[in-house]
């Protein structure tokens, strides 16, 4: 046989294979799932995505390729030597339990399933959008855990619940694919600030330790200079570049509309901003040096002012009450009462612009 005939035959074979591209994706679940969740995944059952599927991307590591943590070991603050004072954490207080979840851990795991006080909580954090949101992991009446699906929408984490294998959008806090599509998850308030500020607020805090069951170097940020530079790894739609893409802003969501508050609006002391958004009177308190912003509805017509140097107390009012970062009155005639928290969290500017196009920026 002539040699060029062989080449020709193989070339024809290759060309004929061109339509033979195959993609297979499946999940197999063992019976002894450590989370006591039962997953009824049927690869042949397809649901409707409630977000544009053409804007959902496989991030690369795959489903559970970034392993979520469940009930990680906690340390006393004094023993957390791997943390620097400027490291960011997400903190929660529930009853007498106070716990901090460092970005250093969450950068590698994105989700921590745990229980704090009365809360069964998933601390979700997306390193690409810089958004940390607490979720009640009681979903549809059943306590579940969340895992990292490996998918991204607008560069944002898509967790999946291990009870039904439904997929959720972190920033939207709703189920976007699967049996529970259309359901929402209850947000649990977290405060994002520095490790130092958190320790000032709560010296007795516990914090997630670096000895997880996974072998990672938590002192290395896994995304290079991503959190500092003006570039994205995955497409977002729309891309709003009115502010630096990775500027951390506090966004408040009311009636599916959002408004962004910049750290630069606050000074190096506690500052109270009163604002009106979507017909609601808002109290926004922040401190650019202490690195926190929190916000509440002013629904009881009190007159507030910022309190300095008494963290976690940040506000006082004309009745003599003192309110902490959670909006709880720690002193005064309204002791124990709580201001209504807004639906709000901190995230990179571009993520707010992508999920809430043309959102207002507080000036």
């Amino acid at each position, binding site marked *: 046989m002539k040699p060029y005939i062989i080449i020709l035959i193989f070339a024809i074979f290759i060309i004929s294979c061109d339509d033979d591209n195959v993609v*297979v994706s499946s999940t197999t679940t063992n019976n002894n799932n450590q989370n006591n969740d039962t997953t009824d995944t049927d690869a042949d059952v397809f649901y409707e995505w409630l977000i544009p599927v053409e804007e*959902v991307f496989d991030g690369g590591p795959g489903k559970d390729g970034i392993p979520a943590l469940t009930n990680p070991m906690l340390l006393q603050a004094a023993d957390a030597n791997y943390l620097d004072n400027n490291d960011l954490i997400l903190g929660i207080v529930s009853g007498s339990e106070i716990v901090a979840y460092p970005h250093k851990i969450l950068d590698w795991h994105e989700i921590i399933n745990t229980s704090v006080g009365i809360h069964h909580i998933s601390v979700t954090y997306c390193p690409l959008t810089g958004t940390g949101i607490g979720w009640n992991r009681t979903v549809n009446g059943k306590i579940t855990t969340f895992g990292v699906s490996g998918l991204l929408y607008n560069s944002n984490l898509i967790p999946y619940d291990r009870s039904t294998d439904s997929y959720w959008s972190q920033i939207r806090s709703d189920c976007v694919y699967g049996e529970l599509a259309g359901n929402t998850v209850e947000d649990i308030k977290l405060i994002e600030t520095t490790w130092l500020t958190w320790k000032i607020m709560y010296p007795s805090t516990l914090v997630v330790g670096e000895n997880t069951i996974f072998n990672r170097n938590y002192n290395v940020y896994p995304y*290079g200079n991503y959190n500092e530079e003006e570039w994205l790894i995955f497409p977002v739609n729309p891309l709003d570049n009115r502010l630096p893409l990775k500027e951390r802003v506090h966004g408040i969501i009311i009636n599916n509309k959002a408004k962004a508050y910049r750290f630069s609006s606050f000074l190096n002391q506690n500052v109270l901003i009163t604002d009106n958004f979507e017909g609601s009177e808002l109290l926004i308190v922040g401190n650019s040096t202490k690195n926190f912003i929190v916000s509440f509805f002013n629904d009881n017509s009190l007159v507030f002012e910022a309190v300095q140097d008494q963290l976690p107390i940040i506000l006082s009012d004309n009745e003599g009450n003192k309110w902490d970062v959670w909006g709880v009155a720690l002193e005064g005639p309204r002791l124990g009462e709580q201001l209504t928290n807004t639906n709000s969290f901190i995230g990179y500017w571009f993520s707010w612009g992508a999920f809430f196009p043309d959102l207002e920026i507080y000036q």
Partner: protein
Amino acid sequence: MLKFLIIIPILFFSRSTFGQTCCSGGVPLSGNIGFIGEEKGLFQFELSYDYNFLNTLYFQNQKLNDNSRKRTTQSILFKSGYNISNSFSADLLFSYVQQEREINQFNNINYTRTRGVGDAIVLLKYKVHGISNFNQILLVGLGSKVPIGKSDLKTDQGISLSADLQPGSGSYDFIYWGHFQRQFKLRPTLVVLSRIIYKQNGKNDNYLGSQTYQFGNEFQSLIGVGDIFYIKNLSITSGLSLRYRNTSFDKVNNVRLANTGGEWIYLAPSIGLSINSFTTLNISPELPIYTNLIGTQLSTDFRLNTGLHIKLKNYKSIKTIKTIKL
């Protein structure tokens, strides 16, 4: 024609140099190109199978105790080469690729597989006459990787997959290739060789619809030794090579992507059985003996390449030399 016989050990090393399209998987294209032959009119073909298994997670040069992720790349490669003249030759390589990703975590096994035609390579080689003589050969080559493989595969739900799971890269790449080999009068079948490959990668301008993706440029160098032994009438070629490979960062929209790139040294023994005077069956496993990656990445644990090599001209001369040897 004695020097023609020397070519045989060299064939093994062509399988020992390969270029992954990504640190965590990849298709062994660039290193699989480059037949050695110098006689005008010589046709060579090889059909080979390449298996690349990645299961060890590294942080830089430190193995992490986490083997929950597996990546395999299996490729069927068809390579042909033709000597246009005594100075110029050309190689052509086609590939068919299967990529697999498996994550065994929390008692779930999550599996993704893609399969399809991979990219192709053309390489034009030139024998440098001033240096080449009866005892040694220097070949230099210039080639291109042509993106005929798909780089935009989606799952059946319509979700775009990442670049390292695609059978093709979506980019035209330049390949610079050099090969030097020398044999010795005392034992003419003994060959030492060195090979250098540099792949300058282009951009996939349609990554995830609106982005560019550029795999990191890649440098490979190889040194090896090979010889032929005879057991009765069976000719057995054995070889051992050491390969250094260095890849730079991948880039998305011209920005360096973390956890890509690194350097490796591989050790690759090889063995070949001459089925007849123009057909050889080759097998070459490869093990990494040094790994130092940028950031945290999966890396190759084991690789195997096996193939059937056929020459369609000049086999009579080989037979003649074997007879002399025997």
